[in-house]
């Protein structure tokens, strides 16, 4: 098992390196930073000076290695053009907000989606499960921003129960500031979390239901019943452990999705996460921030995939022995 994890870790590092090259190349191709930094009246000599001071006169591969060294070893992506702060600091300031949003949304999606999916899979003909399935179609076909706006309309505008946007007070845990540990924080979190969770929950329901229906008629479930095991054990252990494999796969992918592309929800709720930061940075052409965002997202998604793979090996012993062979 350890060897397969080490191998996956090496693969992950490879992916990060490839992505860094792509990000660097894309950046190199997009315009000349000198023309953006130098004043329009600058002479050619002055431009050359800037070019040299930025290291742009060096061969491409040297530039890439310098970028790599700074980015990966010192986590230095340069300073934001807009605020002058280190780009990485901006990202890390905003990341906890997105992380708690994505984590809470996936948590509720799984908490509600898995039991409902199992129920729908167990009794596919019942009225309850038909309602669940119809609801789930609605859940993932409604556009995200619309759901968000409707929630704001109902709970913030008409009922005045919850704030329409922004983030509640965040407490500092070392460098990380989180708002999930206070009631006020949750009040702000609730609507954006619901917006994302509704769509993801619908997906989890469908995956769980399909896995349940596939798993139920199999011999080992019947054999578990033939051994006189309680229904709770048959469903809670024998069924659940098998259907968790596809559910974890989907949940992992979706979690990454939510994290990297929470832009829409964050914009609707003016949630100060990295999605919103990215949009703002793209609009203001704040390249260091965009680069830092891309690199961090790549690292995060790769780490997430690695984690899913590890969970996978724990859940399904057959994967382990295949990888070890």
């Amino acid at each position: 098992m350890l060897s397969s994890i080490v191998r996956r870790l090496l693969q992950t590092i490879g992916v990060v390196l490839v992505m860094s090259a792509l990000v660097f190349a894309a950046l190199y191709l997009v315009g000349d930073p000198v023309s953006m930094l130098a004043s329009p009246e600058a002479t050619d000599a002055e431009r050359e000076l800037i070019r040299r001071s930025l290291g742009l006169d060096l061969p491409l591969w040297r530039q890439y290695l310098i970028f790599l060294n700074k980015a990966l070893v010192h986590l230095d992506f340069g300073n934001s053009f807009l605020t002058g702060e280190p780009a990485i600091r901006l990202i890390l300031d905003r990341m906890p907000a997105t992380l708690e949003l994505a984590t809470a949304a996936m948590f509720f999606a799984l908490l509600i989606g898995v039991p409902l999916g199992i129920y729908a899979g167990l009794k596919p003909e019942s009225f309850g499960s038909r309602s669940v399935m119809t609801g789930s179609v609605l859940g993932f076909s409604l556009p995200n921003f619309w759901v968000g706006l409707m929630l704001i309309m109902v709970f913030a505008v008409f009922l005045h129960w919850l704030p329409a946007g922004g983030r509640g007070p965040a407490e500092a845990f070392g460098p990380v500031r989180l708002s999930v540990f206070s009631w006020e924080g949750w009040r702000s979190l609730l609507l954006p979390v619901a917006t994302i969770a509704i769509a993801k929950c619908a997906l989890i329901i469908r995956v769980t239901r399909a896995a349940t229906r596939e798993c139920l008629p199999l011999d080992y479930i019947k054999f578990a019943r033939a051994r006189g095991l309680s229904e709770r054990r048959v469903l809670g252990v024998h069924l659940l452990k098998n259907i968790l494999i596809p559910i974890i796969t989907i949940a992992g992918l979706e979690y990454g999705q939510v994290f990297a592309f929470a832009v829409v929800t964050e914009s609707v709720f003016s949630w100060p996460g990295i999605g919103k930061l990215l949009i703002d940075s793209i609009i203001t052409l704040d390249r260091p921030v965009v680069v830092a965002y891309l690199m961090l997202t790549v690292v995060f998604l790769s780490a997430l995939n690695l984690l899913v793979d590890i969970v996978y090996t724990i859940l399904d012993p057959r994967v382990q022995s295949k990888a070890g062979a």
Partner: protein
Amino acid sequence: MQTRAPSSSSPWLLDVQGLRTWFHTRRGVVKAVDGVSLQLKQGEILGLVGESGSGKTITGFSLMNLVDKPGRIRADRLFFDGRELQALSAKEYRALRGHEMAMIFQDPMMTLNPVLRVDTQMIETVQAHEQVSRSAARARCIEMLVKVGIPAPAERMSVYPHHLSGGMRQRIAIAIALLNSPKLIIADEPTTALDVTIQGQILYEVQKLCRETGTALIWITHDLALVSGLADRLAVMYAGRIVETAPTADIIRAAQHAYTHGLMASIPTFDTRGKSLFQIPGSTPSPLNMPEGCPFRTRCYRATPQCVEEPLFEMVAPAHGVSCWHRGVET
């Protein structure tokens, strides 16, 4: 088979009369089992023989009350160990399954849960029926694995099923079935998916263990040759009914039903070497479109217009019953 003893002093461990398991589907009622009667003494081995689709597996599942929807089980009488099974609650039935009545499935590759270790699956079977400590349960499991002929049982316990061969897995399934010393084991073609050499071993092992422990056994199979060396009595099933039942020797010597003749004639022997083997013409009728009267009449060489009427199940000898208008030994 027609004599019905009062339940209290019944000599039968299992007494089934008129078992009907019907599936109510949109396309009609599928009568997978339609009036099966079986009686089994303690420690007796019954071979339930029939082609695929004859309803023998569903019969086994019906006794275990493990028929999936939309199947419905009904019987005139379903007595097991002095109790009417149809009167049991779901909870009581669960307590019975795996404890007093156990089952072994056909495909050993599929019966064990792939994501749980062997010991988990064995110990939970013990603990589902008895308040015993994990270590006591484990000791009993290891003991049982030794009995079914598994070398190094303690090590086998801690692996996942995919590390084991089919024969090994089937032995474990058998050990699991035997764990709680059941009174009856229903074995649904447990050797069909195995190599011939392993088949013989498993067969021998199961027979020995049943004889030792006094466990009754229903061995469901399509292989008449295999089961005749094992069973005390045979019941031949066709299209959801039992068409003939008798002590094994009587079936071999003097089978009465044309279908039984057909089954026996299709066993390869030294005499049939090099010649083409006998085949029963046609195939089992669709359960949605059963012929009227005797279901075998469309394939039967003895069929006459009389066969449109339902044949009666009659005793031709004390323990030999046949359901055929034109019964008689093969000529």
